[in-house]
């Protein structure tokens, strides 16, 4: 088994005993009646088929031919934000691959010419033509770079900014640069060689197109001698850690900007002077938190009792980037950090995985998350991903009770 086809996940499909852990926060992290559910689709649509369990049940029936494709089924499969909360909660007690089964199911839908949703096909067309998911001119990707930025040529460290920061939130990209400069890091950017990381295509089952993007970017990293890649985008980070190893063994280090800042703080290369006087809560982006562990390909047999031969390196969400952003916030003068109930590996998705095809559901999800943020008494919700920013911005703009929202790099720059 190479674990690249839906059939390879038959063990997961057959061994589910419907325990329901894919829908609820773990017992150890329980805090009360509110905010106990972790699966956005289950909470919103309420039928059990809208859950990790339901999706793998559907996958099994499609594989066995007892369920047939139709438009409603496609909508159902693509409503899932692929946030992975089901996956890590299931894996707290079981050796199952719930999210990879869902992703393999989507890949099968695309292979069978049934998926993805039309809006997702649009991503692929835009990427093919413009190398970014926004359909913006490729030569404008680094238009935000100013002459005041200090870049180095003879370095093996590169900043990969990603489509969303490039075109929608260049202020975040500029903040990343300011921070790297302030910490004395010598780095470069990839200019027109940087193409979309492929995350939106990978997560909608468009593996072939996503694979081509990965191959392109991997070639760029290799040809430019990149040994350390820094990104401020959780989606890009998650793709480099979770998808690229399925294409080729990575020979470079991947760091999120929060990890870089944390290291600079520990090395006394970065310190904060300004008092921000703000009570905040931190939202863990899915692909920076529970889904950011490095994917290690496994090829073997699953024997009786679920024994994996050879042993498999599991991604259970244990080693996500949870610590660094919190340490940064705690170090900024005047910042009081309070936690949401659903945090770290149990964090509730912002809805960023589905806005194109299901804007109403994406909006509902973001509102639910902001409601939880307000429940903590925080004045602001902090995140470290431009997709989360887009989700929260849309929710706030829709007219709900306001709360401040900031990318963590914004606070760091203010505090320098």
């Amino acid at each position, binding site marked *: 088994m190479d674990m690249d086809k839906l059939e390879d996940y038959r063990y997961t499909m057959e061994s589910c*005993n419907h*325990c329901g852990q894919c829908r609820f926060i773990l017992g150890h992290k329980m805090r009360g009646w509110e905010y*106990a559910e972790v699966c956005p689709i289950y909470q919103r649509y*309420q*039928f*059990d088929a809208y859950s990790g369990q339901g999706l793998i*049940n559907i996958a099994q*029936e499609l594989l066995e031919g007892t369920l047939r494709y139709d438009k409603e089924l496609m909508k159902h499969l693509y409503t899932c934000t692929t946030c992975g909360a089901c996956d*890590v909660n299931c894996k707290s007690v079981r050796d199952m691959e719930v999210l990879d089964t869902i992703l393999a199911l989507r890949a099968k839908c695309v292979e069978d010419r049934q998926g993805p949703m039309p809006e997702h096909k649009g991503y692929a067309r835009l990427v093919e033509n413009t190398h970014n998911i926004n359909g913006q001119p490729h030569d404008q990707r680094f238009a935000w770079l100013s002459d005041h930025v200090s870049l180095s040529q003879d370095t093996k460290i590169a900043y990969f900014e990603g489509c969303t920061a490039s075109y929608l939130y260049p202020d975040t990209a500029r903040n990343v640069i300011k921070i790297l400069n302030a910490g004395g890091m010598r780095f470069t950017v990839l200019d027109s060689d940087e193409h979309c990381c492929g995350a939106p295509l990978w997560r909608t089952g468009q593996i072939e197109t996503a694979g081509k993007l990965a191959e392109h970017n991997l070639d760029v990293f290799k040809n430019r001698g990149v040994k350390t890649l820094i990104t401020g985008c959780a989606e890009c980070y998650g793709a480099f850690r979770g998808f690229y190893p399925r294409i080729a063994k990575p020979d470079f280090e991947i760091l999120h900007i929060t990890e870089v800042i944390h290291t600079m703080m520990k090395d006394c290369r970065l310190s904060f002077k300004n008092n921000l006087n703000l009570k905040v809560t931190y939202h863990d982006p899915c692909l920076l938190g529970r889904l950011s562990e490095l994917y290690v390909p496994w090829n073997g047999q699953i024997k009786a009792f679920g024994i994996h031969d050879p042993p498999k390196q599991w991604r259970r969400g244990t080693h996500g980037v949870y610590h660094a952003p919190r340490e940064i916030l705690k170090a900024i003068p005047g910042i009081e950090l309070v936690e949401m109930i659903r945090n770290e590996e149990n964090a509730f998705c912002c809805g960023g995985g589905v806005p194109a095809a299901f804007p109403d559901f994406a909006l509902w999800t973001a509102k639910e998350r902001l409601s939880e943020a307000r429940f903590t008494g925080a004045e602001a919700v902090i995140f470290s991903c431009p997709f989360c920013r887009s989700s929260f911005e849309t929710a706030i703009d829709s007219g709900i009770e306001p709360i401040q929202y900031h990318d963590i790099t914004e606070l760091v720059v203010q505090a320098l």
Partner: protein
Amino acid sequence: MSLLEHVYSELESVVGSEHISDRPHILAAYRHTSPQGGRKSISPEAVILPGRSEEVQAIVRICNRYNIGYTSIVSLFGMGWLVSRPGTIIISLRRMNRILEINERDGFTVVEPAVRHVQLKPELMKRGLSYPVPSVGPSCSVLANFLGKGERHIQHSYSKNNRYLLGYEWVTPTGELIRVGSLANDSGWFCPDGPGPSLGGLIQKGNGIFTKAAIAVDAWKGPAILPTEGRSPTYKVRLPQDCHKVHIFKFHTLEKVRDFMIEMGKAEIGVGVLKFFYATAGVMFTVSANDFWEL
């Protein structure tokens, strides 16, 4: 066989179109073959999600009128073969998830069927109360769990779990709403059996649908919030030693166990003997099937 259109419409009129479905992919979640069961399941014809007791009554009456079977569910834990004959619908009580009352003075709480342990237990702990969870995980229904009359691993220290079940509200197989125990006499939720005749013998699992129940609660001397360390899958919870201690005794013969129990009884210390399956402990201390196998 599928539901006749007018039957579906009648059911839909009870809960609204958003809370009923007969789409094949929606029903896939209720016909999955359980790994414990092994037999291929029969598909339900539809799933319906009532939000109130009155809606449950209306659904049951429609089912009776058209000879449609029904099975009520909440969390599906370990369930296979939900449907025993074609022409059956699933009544998912998932929307009925409110904690209706926490009575600190009289020591009980009133819940709807879809309140889960992961929700109720911490709400009680905040108030210095708790209850024993009988052999299931955090996402399971509190109400369904306490209906079980089987032996559970909590009984050595807390008695049988169904002893915690107090007054309850029950939709009969014919669709009447019955308030059982002290509730029937407007005497509150405190007792499942009277004053007056008990229906305890009549009401067994599988008959009718429970829509509200009171559960007895105990005092909780531990912290209001569990002090959890670590991350999935290796959490640790260290409870304060002034109110939680574990003593491990080893006995080499049953006679010595007997003597020990007699002495404990004389000291008026509650005691039970549990034949504990070591595998359960093994699961708790390992992180994968491979680890467990090597243990």
